[in-house]
């Protein structure tokens, strides 16, 4: 890309995942094969398995803010503040009206609505005890809006509803707004509070797609014959994105450059994925990055440990990377479960340190590979040392046939 102002780089990372509350901690646990899945009590259903985050919300919020806001808001505030701190920006000097906050979400408001329905059920369904906080908590922009309150951002903010493709969608929107000149700094990525709604567990269970295992850490098993469904997780991953010249001018640490992205739709089914469109999405992102599939070093797969999802993505990956024996294909959900709106963001960010350590983290719990998911490039159970890591491709797909792909390149100067 010739115009340097069209080149968008990652300059700060903030995250919370079930196995780490910083990029360093998260990366170390991904390389060590440490799962973040545990038992979790949820309303009506009882004990389930989930990816639960353990960040301290009071690091950036007052107790009152936590009480008034939402869990998704707390996750977003934590990640946004961490990203800003990590970026090295002098926040007091930043023009807050030139900052945009773009946060991908799978859903929002289910937690708060379930809570209120439970509350009025304790009062004979008297709706006069329905909380006046319900509307500000459940508006779809809530997590991003809470970030603007926390960081005093007066530029645009919104959440992007994109099912489980949302994390990538947040990154992509940030890139686009920077390229359009709408903002000078984007705080973007994805968050999810989904484990606090019983409905998501109940719905996956009714669908026959909720994971169970006597050993929680072994429950999330993408590509494995013994997989039996999704482990729902919460989490968040937000970055600061800047145009390359402004990042260079202030001497920022550059984690990588977003050089390719794509989104498309299957238009085939509410739930079942379409490998043809997934492959098209990957190829479109590669085309925009101006590279071939053989130039990708790590593919962060979306696979959720549902039978059909894993098989269909494997088909798509074979179609695009069938002739690329050196690419490493891994999967983060095997460690933390499916973090929904945060999944794409966390899965990309956990791989970004590979630019420096030249390691592809593994897909754990892969003991008996499903032959229908046969991919010789899968990094099974142990990290793989790479000769080079120049490009990472991150897949994120979601219900209603929404697909998203982001490609990040190691930053190697102008």
């Amino acid at each position, binding site marked *: 890309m010739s115009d340097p102002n069209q080149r968008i780089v990652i300059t700060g990372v903030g995250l919370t995942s079930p196995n780490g509350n910083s990029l360093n901690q998260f990366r170390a646990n991904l390389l060590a094969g440490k799962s973040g899945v545990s038992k979790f009590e949820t309303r009506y259903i009882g004990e389930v398995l989930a990816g639960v985050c353990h960040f301290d919300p009071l690091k950036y919020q007052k107790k*009152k803010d936590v009480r008034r806001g939402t869990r998704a808001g707390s996750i977003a505030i934590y990640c946004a503040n961490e990203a800003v701190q990590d970026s090295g920006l002098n926040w007091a000097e930043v023009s807050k009206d030139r900052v945009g906050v773009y946060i991908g979400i799978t859903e929002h408001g289910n937690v708060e609505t379930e809570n209120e329905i439970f509350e009025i059920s304790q*009062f004979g369904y008297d709706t*006069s005890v329905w909380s006046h906080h319900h509307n500000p908590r459940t508006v779809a922009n809530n997590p991003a809006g809470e970030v603007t309150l926390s960081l005093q951002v007066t530029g645009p903010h919104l959440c992007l509803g994109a099912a489980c493709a949302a994390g990538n969608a947040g990154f992509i929107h940030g890139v686009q707004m920077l390229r359009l000149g709408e903002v000078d700094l984007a705080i973007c990525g994805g968050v999810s509070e989904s484990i606090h709604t019983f409905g998501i567990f109940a719905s996956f269970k009714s669908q026959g797609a909720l994971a169970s295992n006597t050993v929680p850490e072994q429950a999330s098993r993408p590509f494995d014959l013994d997989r039996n469904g999704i482990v729902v997780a919460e989490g968040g991953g937000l970055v600061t994105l800047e145009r390359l010249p402004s990042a260079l001018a202030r001497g920022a640490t550059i984690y990588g450059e977003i050089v390719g992205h794509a989104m498309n739709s299957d238009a085939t089914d509410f739930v079942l994925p379409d490998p043809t469109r997934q492959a098209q999405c990957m190829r479109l992102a590669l085309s925009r990055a101006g590279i071939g599939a053989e130039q990708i070093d790590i593919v962060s797969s979306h696979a959720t440990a549902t039978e059909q999802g894993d098989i269909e993505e494997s088909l798509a990956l074979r179609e695009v990377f069938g002739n690329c024996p050196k690419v490493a294909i891994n999967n983060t959900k095997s460690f933390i479960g499916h973090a929904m709106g945060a999944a794409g963001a966390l899965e990309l960010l956990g791989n970004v340190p590979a630019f420096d350590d030249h390691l592809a983290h593994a897909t754990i719990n892969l003991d008996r590979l499903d032959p229908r998911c046969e991919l010789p490039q899968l990094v099974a159970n142990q990290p793989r040392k790479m000769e080079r890591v120049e490009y990472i491709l991150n897949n994120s797909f979601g219900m209603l046939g929404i697909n998203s792909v982001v490609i990040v390149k190691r930053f190697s100067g102008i």
Partner: protein
Amino acid sequence: MSADQIRQVILNILIRIAPDNDLTNLKDEVPFREQMELDSMDFLDIVMEIRKRYRVQIPEEDYTFLNTMASTVGYLLPRLQAATA
């Protein structure tokens, strides 16, 4: 319920609504909003908590009685005594 008991109920609600404030030395004759962070949504939480705990509905035109601890206790005393009788 006695006035002291009602005062304690209100104090407990305020502690929950404004957990970052130290209410140890709350002055009963001084408006709540001059002593603690309390906006209109927080104020509605007081109304809501009383509604939930004692099934007492406080009409909007009476909200002015909830200005200070003293006026709140004075307003609620007959109502809570009736509700808990």
